[in-house]
C-alpha cells in the first residue's frame, strides 16, 4: 500500500481564493511539485503577478515577491542578478504578460535571463471581472468586448509563444494545456523541463499553460475545460516552439 498522490510540500497548507474549478489551482500544484521534485524549494524565489494569482505569494511554499502588473519578468531579473544560483520563477497571467507586460517579457527573453516563466493563458482578465485580453478569441464575449471580440477593432488574438520563440535568447518555449489528466501530466513534465533549463544555466524558459476561467467565461468548470479544448487549442496549438538546448548552434546567429 502506497500513497501515490498527495499534497505537495511546495504549497502552503492553505485553501486558495480561486473560484471553484479554476485551473490556476492545478497549475499551482504542478509548479510546486516540480520545485519539490527538483529539490529547489528552499532555494527558490518566486514572483507573483497582478491578476487572479496575485496571492500566489501566499500559496507557494518558498520566498516570494509580489510584482507590479506586468513587471514580474523585470522583478525576476533583479532577483536573479542578485542571486544567480537561486531558483527564480515568475507566474503570470495573460493580461499581465501579454498586454501590459509585453516589453518586460520580450526583453527578459531577449537577455536570456536565466529564469523560468509560467504563463497562464485563460484568454481573459480574470481578476478585474472578465475584460478582453490580447489572447481573447475572436467572437469571445467579455465585459469590454460585449458583442464578442471584433478583429477589425481589436485585432486577432496574440500568440505569445510563437512570437517569443523568434527571440534568440528564448531558450525554451512550449505551450501546454490542463484540460485533461493526460495534458496535466504532460504540462507537469514540460514545466519541470523548463525549470531544469534554469538549473543547467541555459537561460530563459517559458511554459504557456492554457487555463480556464469558469467565472468570467460564464461556463461551469467541466464545460470550461471542453470550451478550452474546442476553442483555445485550435488557435493556440500545443507543442514546443523552441528548444535551443537541442539546436546545434544556439548563439543567436
Amino acid at each position, binding site marked *: 500500500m502506497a500513497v501515490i498522490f498527495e499534497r505537495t510540500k511546495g504549497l502552503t497548507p492553505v485553501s486558495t481564493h480561486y473560484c471553484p474549478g479554476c485551473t490556476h489551482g492545478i497549475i499551482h500544484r504542478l509548479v510546486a511539485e516540480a520545485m519539490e521534485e527538483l529539490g529547489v524549494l*528552499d532555494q527558490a524565489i518566486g514572483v507573483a503577478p497582478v491578476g487572479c494569482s496575485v496571492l500566489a505569494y501566499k500559496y507557494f511554499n518558498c*520566498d516570494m*515577491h509580489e510584482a507590479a502588473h506586468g513587471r514580474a519578468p523585470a522583478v525576476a531579473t*533583479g*532577483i536573479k*542578478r542578485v542571486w544567480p544560483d537561486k531558483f527564480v520563477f515568475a507566474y503570470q497571467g495573460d493580461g499581465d504578460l501579454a498586454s501590459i507586460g509585453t516589453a518586460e517579457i520580450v*526583453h527578459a527573453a531577449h537577455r536570456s535571463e536565466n529564469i523560468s516563466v509560467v504563463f497562464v493563458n485563460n484568454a481573459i482578465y480574470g481578476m478585474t471581472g472578465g475584460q478582453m485580453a490580447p489572447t481573447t478569441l475572436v467572437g469571445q464575449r467579455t465585459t469590454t468586448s460585449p458583442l464578442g471580440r471584433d478583429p477589425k477593432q481589436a485585432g486577432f488574438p496574440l500568440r505569445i509563444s510563437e512570437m517569443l520563440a523568434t527571440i534568440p535568447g528564448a531558450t525554451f518555449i512550449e505551450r501546454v494545456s490542463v484540460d485533461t489528466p493526460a495534458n496535466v501530466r504532460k504540462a507537469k513534465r514540460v514545466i519541470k523541463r523548463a525549470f531544469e533549463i534554469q538549473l543547467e544555466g541555459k537561460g530563459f524558459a517559458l511554459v504557456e499553460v492554457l487555463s480556464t476561467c469558469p467565472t468570467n467565461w460564464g461556463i461551469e468548470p467541466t464545460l470550461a475545460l471542453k470550451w478550452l479544448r474546442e476553442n483555445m487549442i485550435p488557435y493556440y496549438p500545443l507543442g514546443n516552439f523552441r528548444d535551443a538546448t537541442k539546436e546545434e548552434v544556439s548563439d543567436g546567429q
Partner: protein
Amino acid sequence: MAKVLMKGNEAIGEAAILAGCRFFFGYPITPQSELLEYMSLHLPKAGGTFLQAESEVAAINMVYGAAGCGARVMTGSSSPGIALKQEGISYIAGAELPCVIVNMMRGGPGLGSIQPAQSDYNQSTRGGGDGDYKLLVYAPASIQEMVDYVQISFDKADQYRNPVLIAGDGVLGQMMEPVEFSSQKATDLPAKDWATTGTDGKRAPNVINSLYLDAEELEKHNIHLSEKYAKMKENEQRWESVGIEGAELVIVAYGTTARIARSAMDNLNKQGRKIGLLRPITLWPYPEKAFEELDDATKHLLVVEMSMGQMIDDVRIVNEGKRKIDFVGRSGGVIPSTSLVEEKILEILERSE
C-alpha cells in the same frame, strides 16, 4: 585619499560602488547617462552587475526585485524618466525596501529640454505615485556633497527600509569639481532578515509585497509607514544656513541655485547688506527646524529655484504667514544668473524700505 577631478554623474557612480552598491539598473537619458556609462564599466570590475533595462519602468522594477533580495541597488534617470518610475517607486515604498534613486533634473513638462532644472520638486517631495508614502530626498549642492550623500543615502535607505532620492540637476551631473572619496564608514545597520534569499530550509518564507486586500490591514500598514515618516521628520531634517543671524532677507534655495544664490549673497554682503542663506539639504523631510533659527530681523524670505516656483509651498507651510515670501527663478533649463538674484533682492529691500 587625494582629490580627483570628476564629473558629477561619474562621481556618484564611484561613490555608490564605494558605499557597497553592487547593482545598477538604468536607462539612458541626458543629462544623466554618464552615471550609467560609468557603472557599465566600473561596477563589473567591483564584482557587481550593471544592466541597461529596456525602459525606466523595467529598471525600477528590477530595482524592486534586487532590493527585495537585500542588495544595495541604485537606479538613475532624469525628469521624464523619473515620471515613468512613479508606480514602481510607490511599490518599493509600500513594500518598504531600501534603494537609491538619482534624478538629474532637466526642463519640463513633457519632453521639455535637456538643460538643468529643478522643476521636479513636487514629483520628488509629494510623490507622483499613488498612496500615502514618502521618499527621503537629498538635494546636494556640490559634487563632493553628492558623493558624501550617496553613502548616507544607502545607509538611511537601509535604516528606514525606504527608497531615497538624490535630487540633482543637469549642472551637478555634468560639471567637474575636485572630489575626495573619504572612506566613510557605513553605520551599524540591522540585518536584512526580511529579504528573499531562499529559505534554505531554515525559516518560513519571506514575502515582499505591497498588497493588503483587507482595507483594515492596509490601514495598519499605512499607520506603520506614517510613524516611520514621523521619525524621519524628527531625525533626518538637514540644512545649511549661512549668515542668517540678523539678516534682513534670507534666501531659501537648494542645490545648484543655492550656489548661485550664495554668490549673489556674498556680493551684496560685500556691499554692506545683511543677506542670509538657508539651504535645505533634505527636501523631504523639509527642514522646518531650520526656520526656527531665523530671528526677528528677518522680514523677507526669497525662494530661488530653477523652476516656476515649486518649493514656495513648503516655505509657505513653515512660514505660517510670518514673513513676506518672494520668488525669483528661471525655468525650462535656463540657469538663473547671480545678478538676477541680486537685483531681485535689492528690489525687495527697496520696496520695503
